[in-house]
């Protein structure tokens, strides 16, 4: 990994979504980055998951948003898919390159918090604690 990547953060937001976002600086111009984001053959090389996604918004060389298709793992405890939305934002840099920001947002709806009955483990408490910290920040 190069040092131009920011470490993605995971935040529970006040609007009840959960977001993972990351950004990086690329030497290529927005037009070229846009091509990599929208050409199926190129997409297949780095983000094949995006190829059949439903496009929600597209502004050439600037913004692309689509409904992310839930992977096998993107399910709640009851096996229901977790719906999320990915947004790419491209900004031209003075150097001629592109600043790229990726926001991946999961909408928290009732199915996510399905009723589960499992035995309680200390490890589970640890992550509940971290989730509470995030919720507290959002509150």
């Amino acid at each position, binding site marked *: *990994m*190069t040092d131009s*990547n920011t*470490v*993605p*953060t*995971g935040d*529970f937001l006040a609007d*009840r979504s*959960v977001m*993972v976002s*990351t950004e*990086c600086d*690329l030497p*290529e111009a927005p037009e*070229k*980055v846009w*091509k*990599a984001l929208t050409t199926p053959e*190129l997409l297949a*090389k*780095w*983000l094949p998951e995006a190829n059949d996604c439903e496009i929600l918004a597209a502004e050439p060389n600037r913004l692309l948003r689509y409904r992310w298709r839930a992977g096998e*793992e*993107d*399910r*709640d*405890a009851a096996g229901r898919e*977790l719906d*999320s939305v990915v947004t790419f934002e491209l900004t031209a840099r003075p150097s001629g390159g592109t600043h*790229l920001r*990726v926001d*991946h947002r*999961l909408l*928290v*709806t*009732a199915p*996510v*918090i*399905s*009723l*589960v*009955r*499992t035995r*309680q483990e200390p490890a*589970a*408490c640890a*992550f*509940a*604690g*971290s*989730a*509470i910290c995030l*919720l*507290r920040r*959002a*509150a």
Partner: protein
Amino acid sequence: MPAAPETDLFRTLADPTRRAVFERLCRQEMSVSELKAGFAVSQPAISQHLATLRGAGLVSERREGRFAYYRAEPEALKALVDWVDRYRSFWPERLERLKTVLKDIEP
């Protein structure tokens, strides 16, 4: 799809008292009266908070004769926390691949 109020995780944990109840129950199972000892609110109020937490799947109840005991079900948050963890490592890895793809595109 809007979440039903009683199963709204965020609204449930937005209340500081409820959050504190949930946190205490994460550490150990307790009865309502044991729980009440740590709070400056009435027992009916605690019971109301417990009902809301149960509605959201964050707390479960175990009955033993006349007594009821409550414990936290942090697994209810697992899907969310796992999702965040997964995509926090997914995106940097994919952006590295994007950089390689970009270098190979003809100008």
